[in-house]
């Protein structure tokens, strides 16, 4: 893609008489008395000039942004990603009930279908459900009772919680209009223990996404430090770090991860296990980034601007932090974005096998554990829904990451 096409879309060009721009360009505004033909010609020239000018004065980040937003799919994925991050921050707001609320009498309630219209007006409601035991199999059979209408509304009041652990609130995105009926809304059904899937999904999103992002964060720190040392100083540290990377990369990942997580003591609290798993995931995650950082440092070391900084008497720390790293920050962000879904899938797989996070922690993998049994799955296929969320999350991270990677080099064609 050619970045020169970009300014055509810029809103500012629609009024070329913008005083600031005219000043920057040094172009005298066209007098309105000129003949029509010549005016349009001058205007074209003016627009072309401004295009050139805008590109040459735009900062690196602006160029990256211009390029990124051309990729409509990546922008759309970015919006979904922002939505997911909001859920991570306040899952309580999206939940309809306490995710730990168990009631075995409410097990395996199917997904409720939302009806939008009632008595000719927009008044969404979900039908109530009536459970009856099959006299032969003793299986609970839920039938929809259309006569019992549980009205739902946006911004309903429900159980109280603290936003980010600070501010008290009892507001929820969706909930029963009548607080009395709060325990009757199961938008995505319930699991074996009668826990509400919708609410559990909100909480699981928090844990699973954070694991992915924190472990990539740790990988970035390790990758920058070790890759930086390796590329900037060279010599024996480079030798040692490169061998270490090769060793770690030749390890079979999944079996080793399994062994590592199996080694975590069963007595550990969920928080401890959570952090242990982020560290375990980061242990190999940094190697890819370190390789990239090393390559960048190796080529940048020879650049004129680094030599200039050295001659100007900059300290090594300053050269690295102020002059070198900013030149490839966008690449690091792109690579990290692409690394997050790998971490998420790994955590999900480990927890699914029962070796990662364990209940009472709620993650997508922990939720999917409920879907391990095929007979149960045939009975309650909605237990697979957390998997759909995993797929969506991985998809948007990949699309945003790809978009960023393509945009990261704004000067390439």
């Amino acid at each position, binding site marked *: 893609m050619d970045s020169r096409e970009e300014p055509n879309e810029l809103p500012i060009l629609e009024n070329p008489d913008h005083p600031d721009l005219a000043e920057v360009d040094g172009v005298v505004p066209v007098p309105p008395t000129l003949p029509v033909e010549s005016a349009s010609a001058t205007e074209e020239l003016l627009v072309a000039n401004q295009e050139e000018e805008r590109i040459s004065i735009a900062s690196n980040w602006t160029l990256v942004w211009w390029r990124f937003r051309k990729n409509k799919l990546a922008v759309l994925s970015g919006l979904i990603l922002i939505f997911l991050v909001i859920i991570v921050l306040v899952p309580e707001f999206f939940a309809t009930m306490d995710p730990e609320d168990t009631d075995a009498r409410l097990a395996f309630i199917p997904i409720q279908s939302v009806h939008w219209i009632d008595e000719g007006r927009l008044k969404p409601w979900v039908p109530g459900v009536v459970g009856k035991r099959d006299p032969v199999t003793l299986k609970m059979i839920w039938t929809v009772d259309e006569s019992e209408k549980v009205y739902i509304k946006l911004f309903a009041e429900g159980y109280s919680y603290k936003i980010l652990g600070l501010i008290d609130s009892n507001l929820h995105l969706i909930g029963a209009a009548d607080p009395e009926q709060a325990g009757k809304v199961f938008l995505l059904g319930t699991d074996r223990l009668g826990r509400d899937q919708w609410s559990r999904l909100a909480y699981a999103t928090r844990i699973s996404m954070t694991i992915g992002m924190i472990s990539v964060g740790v990988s970035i720190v390790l990758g920058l430090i070790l890759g930086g040392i390796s590329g900037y100083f060279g010599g024996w540290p480079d030798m040692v770090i490169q061998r270490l990377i090769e060793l770690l990369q*030749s*390890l079979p990942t999944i079996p080793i991860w399994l062994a590592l997580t199996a*080694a975590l003591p069963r007595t550990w609290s969920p928080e401890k296990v959570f952090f242990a798993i982020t560290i375990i995931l980061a242990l190999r995650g940094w190697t890819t980034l370190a390789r990239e950082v090393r390559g960048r440092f190796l080529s940048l070391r020879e650049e004129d601007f680094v030599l200039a900084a050295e001659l100007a008497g900059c300290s090594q720390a300053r050269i690295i932090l102020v002059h070198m790293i900013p030149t490839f920050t966008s690449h690091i962000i792109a690579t990290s974005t692409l690394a997050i879904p790998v971490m998420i899938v790994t955590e999900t*797989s480990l927890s699914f096998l*029962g070796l990662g996070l364990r209940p009472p922690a709620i993650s997508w993998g922990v939720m999917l554990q409920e*879907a391990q049994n095929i007979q149960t799955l045939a009975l309650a296929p909605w237990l*697979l829904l957390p998997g759909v969320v*995993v797929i969506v999350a991985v998809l948007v991270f990949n699309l945003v990451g790809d978009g960023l990677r393509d945009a990261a080099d704004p000067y390439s064609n």
Partner: protein
Amino acid sequence: MVRYILQRLLLIPVLLVLFSIMVFALVQAPPGDYLTTYIATLSASGSSMDQAQVDALEKQFGLDQPVHVQYWRWMQSLARGELGLSLEYQRPNSELIGERLGLTIALALAAFVFTWVVAIPIGIYSATHRNSILDYLITVINYTGVAIPNFMLALILMWLAYAYFDVSITGLFSREFEQAPWSFAKFIDLLKHIWLPMIVIGVAGTARLTRVMRANLIDELNKPYMVSGRARGLSEWQLVMKYPVRLAINPLASTIGWYLPELFSGSLIVATVMNLQNIGPLLLRSLTNQDMYLAGSILLIYCALAIVGTLISDILLAWVDPRIRMEKS
């Protein structure tokens, strides 16, 4: 070339020794050992073991020795070509693993062949029919294929088959062949079952390979030699297949390096979900039961498979691309 391969071969034992130390530290790491787990299971079921028995078992397995002595004993048995005794099954590990190792490798290779056979033609089609509807469709499928965790795909397929066709698609053999000795009929039975896990394991790799192939080929299609070929009147099919496709496939050899090892270890989770008798579920079980020699041996085998996979890819790469060959020698 020969020298390069020899150098790589010499490195393997060094790597394996390093890995064996790592692996042993890992299987040793959980608190307690097989006996404490075993005693806990016994007491949970109401029975118990007296101290004399416990001591005798500890002595037999060498669990009373310090860690480095245990490691040394394990290494000695490895050097003799034995993999130690499984604490749980009370059978030599080599026997337990041996019958499953072949299936692990067969499954990975089948998935590998599937990937290449499917990805290359689709990649070529996608690149030559750029921005067509089918190309967009392929791109969408590719993105989904990469995003879907393979155990999830296995679950969905198993559920669909069970709920709508009332068939169970787990396992690698029909019931009557499960314990039977190898025969031609059993082999045919294996072929009847292996295709589904093969697809499940291969899907993600196929999606990625298709994308790489498409990108590589598009780069080649824009080169001037294509114009000159057209000017000389070559048919489009001949032109594409003879030059750019060959050039676009070359870099793919380097993907084998990470793909083969990934297939070996990636089948682990799918195997557990689909109940395939390869070494994956065995590893999972031995890890949870702290059957440490068995777990250690399987982990070491995964390491060896990973090393061999990388080696094969490096040799292939040097073989297909003379530039690398020249550089290395």
